[in-house]
């Protein structure tokens, strides 16, 4: 190859490479950014930590504090306008304070004015799985109760103490409809008795979340028969949810609030004449 021809070829190659490099550079537009994996979805659970009387598998967030006030008007609705359908009172009332040291554990201290029952309870959510269409969760509840106003008995009497355990099974469908099953054991269900006894019960409830604020709740607690507490417990109500508050309005045949008094049954039959009004208010901080 002659020197001249070689020089021509080198020039041509150089020009071609320059053009290619420039074109490639001009085509290097757009970002190289790519989205990272999204955060995993949480398993949907019931909105509230409790139904109307029974627990759900839901727990407070770590570090959160919950406060609750529960009222049951003792006169039935059937007492009519003279008793303002029960609002004239008297009432059974419960105050409760809850603290969550972790996302899965809650510790509660509550007091009911019926026999001045003090209740110390722990709830642990031990399992949850599923997603939007179906979710299942399990919690375990254990509690100790001390009744300090039992007629004819000193505060420190051993028969004033009760203890209980519950297994909470929750299923949630399409994050709209939930059902709960709560088998429970209670020791010393009738604390006024002179001896200890055991009681078994099976709690059932259904929740329907109509929208962001309103929900409907039905609850039934099947308890083994005993003469002092011959009837099961039934409650029907609705809730208003505001993100930090729950307001629950209900009708029920039972006037017991603390678990050790509620689980073993009711003195009132499940008829329209024996239904009472009640409300639950809870607030989370």
């Amino acid at each position, binding site marked *: 190859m002659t020197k*001249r021809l070689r*020089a*021509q070829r080198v*020039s041509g190659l*150089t*020009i071609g490479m*320059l*053009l290619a*490099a*420039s*074109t*490639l*550079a*001009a085509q*290097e*537009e*757009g*970002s*190289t*950014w790519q*989205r*990272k994996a*999204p*955060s995993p*979805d*949480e398993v*949907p659970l019931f*909105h509230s930590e409790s139904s109307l009387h029974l627990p759900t598998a839901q727990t*407070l*967030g770590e570090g*959160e504090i919950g406060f609750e006030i529960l009222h049951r008007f003792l006169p039935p609705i059937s007492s009519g306008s003279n008793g303002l359908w029960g609002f004239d009172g008297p009432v059974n009332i419960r105050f409760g304070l809850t603290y969550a040291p972790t*996302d899965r554990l809650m510790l509660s201290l509550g007091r009911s004015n019926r026999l001045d029952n003090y209740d110390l309870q722990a709830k642990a959510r031990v399992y949850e799985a599923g997603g*939007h269409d179906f979710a299942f969760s399990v919690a375990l509840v254990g509690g100790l109760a001390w009744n300090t106003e039992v007629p004819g008995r000193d505060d420190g009497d051993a028969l004033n103490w009760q203890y209980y355990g519950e297994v909470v099974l929750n299923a949630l469908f399409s*994050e709209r409809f939930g059902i709960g099953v709560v088998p429970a054991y209670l020791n010393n269900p009738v604390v006024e008795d002179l001896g200890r006894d055991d009681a078994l019960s099976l709690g059932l409830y259904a929740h329907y979340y109509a*929208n*962001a*604020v309103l929900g409907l709740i039905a609850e039934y607690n099947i308890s083994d028969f005993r003469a002092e507490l011959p009837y099961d417990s039934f409650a029907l109500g609705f809730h208003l*949810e*505001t*993100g*930090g508050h729950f307001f629950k309005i209900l009708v029920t045949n039972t006037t017991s609030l603390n678990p050790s008094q509620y689980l073993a049954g009711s003195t009132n039959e499940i008829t329209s004449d024996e239904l009472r009004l009640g409300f639950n208010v809870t607030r*989370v*901080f």
Partner: protein
Amino acid sequence: MRRITRQRSRQLFVLFLCAVLLPTGLARAQEYHVDTSAENHVTFISDAPIEDFEGVTNAIDGYVLLGPGGMGPNADLESSQFYFEVDLATMHTGIKRRDRHMRENYLQTAEFPYASYEGKLSGTEADDDGSFHLDLEGTFSVHGVEREKEVRCVARGGEPRYRIRCRFEVSLVEHDIDVPSLMFLKIGEVIDLRVDFYVKRVRQ
């Protein structure tokens, strides 16, 4: 006069092409990505008649593309691009119940997991302290609804890392976020959104 030989003219032509083409090829975009390992904060503030609360997350991501002039006086605004997004499922208000309420009932994060803002720079202005005031224009999207929005931000720092802070308002109604009238006493109709994050250069 000395004649320019044919060979000499070819050499001059190649040099001319180098002078024209190479700078064009080497004038590349500057790209920055959000530094997700930094202390980024996205905060929304709800100011309602009976309750005030804040929601926070650090899950912001995205990028900025600038022309060869960067953010300075020679910034090529037309070739700039940005895209930022926030993972709404990570927002926390301090109450788990309220977080879930917000995610499921108002933001519906299962269907609309991200809030995003994308567009380009419409202006830059250098400050005496070395920071830049950036005017952004683009499309803000949340709850599946897009709205045109202009935002002014401040960028501080220096190559290769900048801290960017922005503040703007979002109307819940404009993004079809349906809040019951009772809840407007507890949730503000207009949310104050504050963004404070870091970007680092990934290529030039």
